[in-house]
């Protein structure tokens, strides 16, 4: 998969001039509360980069600094080679980026088509209005007034407004929060299609499955700091984590009878192994000799969600300890 290869080419923050987004040592405090403390990452052209973290971890603050809505206290930030805090360059930068914000906010009395056409007029080379309405999944709703759209349809209109300027870089702040499963998959398809057409996408989410399904690379942010970075399959050492072999304890045997060391619980035995091939061989050889069937035999690794919970939970404990 090209996705994995791209993710493995991890670059040092701040160094490459050709990255879509460069963040190095970014800090921001609100009064005594430190929202972001020394965050660094880069987003390469053409990839989908997900900033993953629990509510209050600093995702939105980081995104809003990149989008030019907030000032920063310290650090280097470059979006398409421009400092988003530079007001003079703001208009030129805004013509090249698209923003889909968390809150839905559009004039209620215009129709879908009028709303998109209005924003199209703000950009030098906008996409076709009808086409963008179709991409956002609102075909057939062109003449519906915005106030009569459902919540999900309003989010799609927001996506259409983010796309209408034909952006090189699209920011998506929790793009599918509140979507039903079908709508989420449609939105994911739309986002993948955008990457296919060369758009760089930076999204924030607290959904593991969203990061897993969409992102080429993931950075986990917790307590205002990046605690892990990588592809969805390598982040937090997922690829090096010990494999886990689960099976039901055969009737008439105790855990101590097994040829490998395992932990029993809930009727299932879990064996952790750094050499799963060898461990499995030992285990199945032992079972075959005795004519035993190992029911419910599975091999897996920690899910992205488990890694995420470990990373963000651990960070919280550290913070609580240092606060004491």
């Amino acid at each position, binding site marked *: 998969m090209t996705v994995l290869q791209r993710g493995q080419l991890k670059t040092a923050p701040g160094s490459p001039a050709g990255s879509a987004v460069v963040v190095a040592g970014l800090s921001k405090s609100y009064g005594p509360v430190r929202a972001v403390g020394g965050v660094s990452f880069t987003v390469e052209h053409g990839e989908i980069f997900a900033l993953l973290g629990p509510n209050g971890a600093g995702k939105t603050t980081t995104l809003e600094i990149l989008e030019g809505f907030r000032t920063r206290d310290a650090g280097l930030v470059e979006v398409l080679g421009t400092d988003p805090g530079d007001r003079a360059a703001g208009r030129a930068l805004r013509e090249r980026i698209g923003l889909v914000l968390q*809150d839905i906010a559009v004039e209620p*009395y215009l129709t879908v088509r009028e709303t998109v056409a209005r924003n199209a007029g*703000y950009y*030098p080379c906008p996409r076709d209005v009808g086409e963008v309405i179709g991409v956002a999944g609102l075909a057939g709703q062109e003449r519906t*007034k915005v106030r009569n759209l459902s919540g999900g349809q309003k989010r799609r209109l927001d996506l259409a407004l983010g796309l209408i300027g034909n952006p090189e870089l699209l920011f998506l702040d929790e793009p599918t929060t509140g979507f039903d499963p079908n709508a989420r998959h449609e939105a994911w398809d739309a986002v993948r299609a955008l990457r296919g057409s060369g758009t760089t996408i930076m999204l924030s989410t607290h959904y593991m499955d969203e990061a897993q399904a969409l992102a080429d690379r993931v950075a986990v942010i917790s307590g205002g700091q990046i605690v892990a970075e990588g592809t969805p399959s390598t982040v937090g050492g997922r690829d090096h984590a010990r494999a886990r072999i689960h099976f039901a304890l055969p009737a008439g045997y105790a855990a101590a009878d097994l040829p490998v060391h395992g932990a029993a619980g809930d009727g299932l035995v879990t064996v952790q192994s750094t050499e799963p091939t060898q461990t499995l061989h030992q285990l199945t050889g032992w079972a075959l000799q005795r004519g035993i069937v190992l029911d419910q035999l599975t091999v897996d690794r920690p899910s992205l969600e488990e890694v995420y919970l470990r990373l963000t939970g651990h960070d919280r404990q550290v913070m609580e300890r240092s606060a004491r």
Partner: protein
Amino acid sequence: MSVATHPAAHHDAALLWHQIRYEQLSFWRNPQSAFFTFAFPVVIITIFGLLFRSGSGSSYFYGLTALQYYVPTIAALSVVGSCYSQLAIVLAQRRQDGILKRVRATPLPAWAYFLGLLAHCIMVSVVDVALIVGIGSIFGMPLPTHWAAIAVTLVLGAASFCTLGVAVASLIRNSEAAPAVVQLVLFPLLFISGTYLPIHSAALNRIAGALPVRPFNQALLGPFAQHTGFEWKDLGVLLAWGAVGALVAIRRFRWNPGPR
């Protein structure tokens, strides 16, 4: 796509025209707001017309008929209402709803957004004043002759009260408090400025003369009723208040909704 290619004057002019058109479309699409914007001055001037239809000049109205006095002051009231009050409330509401932040997310420059609003306010003011003058003439008020003075006063007044509206919207934190704050400031000011009743206190007139509403009233009373043309001193005071409003607006205006 480079910066140099498009901030050409014709591009910006087209952008401004685009914004004015859509600001108008948003306004006319909300039939209730469109109706009430124009209904209020029409109702007031009709009531005054019915009350004072056959009046003759009196010293209470500085030698004018009641209607000669009220057509300009109610015209001023309608402009203040649509430029200052409405704009402050609408902007505070749009900010709270996140609509302003959404505007800020696009390349639309702030000046184009505000000029679109100003054009809208001037349009509403012109329609309001035309309605008031039209209804006044039904009740026997002669049409004014100094149209140039009226037009200049109207545009300057609308612009000044717009900047004051934006300034007040910049200082209000909570959109739910906006109507109350706006009226609290405006209502006493209208009274001491002689909008509803002529004021015969020299001291009060001096104070009100330095505030924005009375100069606007006076600048319209001249060309409307006394056929005196431009009231430069009053226009100067209006312009000064417009500048104060602009300064506060530029320094304090926020696009982001505050914490809820």
